[in-house]
């Protein structure tokens, strides 16, 4: 048979089989993903948020705050304290938290991990809060960048 003499015919058949398998599996994972995201919609998680006003007073902690899975740090903060903010294409920019404006210090956010405090490099509305995660707003000097972690 002439078609068997052509090795590219066989290669094409093998690639066709692979493409069909891959398409089936991608459809399967797409359905699984949709199903899972529909199921977890509205699932409630807990998170801890601290507000450090940088004036030596005790940090205000809101431990075990309940929020929907997929909520951002901005959502969590708005839920607990009055926030003044500006929206831009880069994300939300915080102007004031709890009536304390970005002058002379600035509001920076930090997340706690087993390595200590990690500086939040992205806008607070881009950061999705995890289950039982601990986050902190710290009103601090930004003369050095990144600023020193909370003590």
């Amino acid at each position, binding site marked *: *048979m002439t078609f*068997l003499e052509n*090795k590219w015919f*066989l290669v094409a*058949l*093998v690639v*066709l*089989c692979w493409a*069909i*398998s891959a398409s*089936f*599996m991608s*459809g*399967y994972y*797409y*359905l699984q993903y949709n199903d899972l995201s529909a199921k977890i919609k509205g699932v409630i998680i807990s998170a801890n948020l601290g507000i450090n006003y940088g004036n030596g007073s005790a940090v205000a902690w809101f431990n075990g705050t309940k929020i929907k899975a997929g909520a951002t740090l901005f959502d969590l903060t708005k839920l607990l304290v009055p926030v003044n903010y500006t929206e831009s294409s880069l994300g939300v920019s915080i102007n004031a938290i709890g009536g304390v404006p970005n002058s002379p210090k600035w509001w920076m956010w930090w997340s706690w991990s087993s390595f200590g405090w990690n500086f939040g490099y992205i806008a607070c509305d881009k950061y999705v809060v995890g289950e039982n995660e601990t986050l902190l707003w710290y009103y601090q000097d930004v003369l050095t960048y990144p600023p020193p972690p909370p003590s």
Partner: protein
Amino acid sequence: MNTFKIAIIATLAALSIVTNYMLIGVSNIKLMDFIVFVGGFCFGPFAGASIGILSWLVYGVLNPQGFAPLVWLSTMLAESIYGFVGGFLGKSIGSIDFHGQRLKLSIFFATVGFLPTVVYDLVTNIAYASTFNVPIVVAVFTGAPYTVLHELANSAIFGVCSVPIVVALGKIVWRQET
């Protein structure tokens, strides 16, 4: 159709039914499709299709996994695809000398095992969707891991077994004819 052909069809149908019962605990890995294909390849498309239809006639009714008429009809008809494909391929490449090109033929047969299985799974999934009022897209893609397993298993079986079995059966047929 001579008595020899009738005997072969009955024997291969019995063989495919028996292997299906033996492999009942192994989901979607069966020798039935391959036996139907080989029947078609060696004895013509209608003999192959008959083996497939006869096999499902028994296995589909006496099935511990249940009985749904539409699914049963679809599997019976879809199974005959292997027989037809085998029959038409037998007419096309049955006369060539397999010696010296076994690897190439094995790869070809592996793809031949794969492609009719896609059609078979699509047909049976659509029948399942119609029977149980499931959206067709959901039925097709939810069962995708089983579909792909079925396709890959058939590729492996067809790829490894086709050449030796076709050569062996070809000798029996040749002896019978001479």
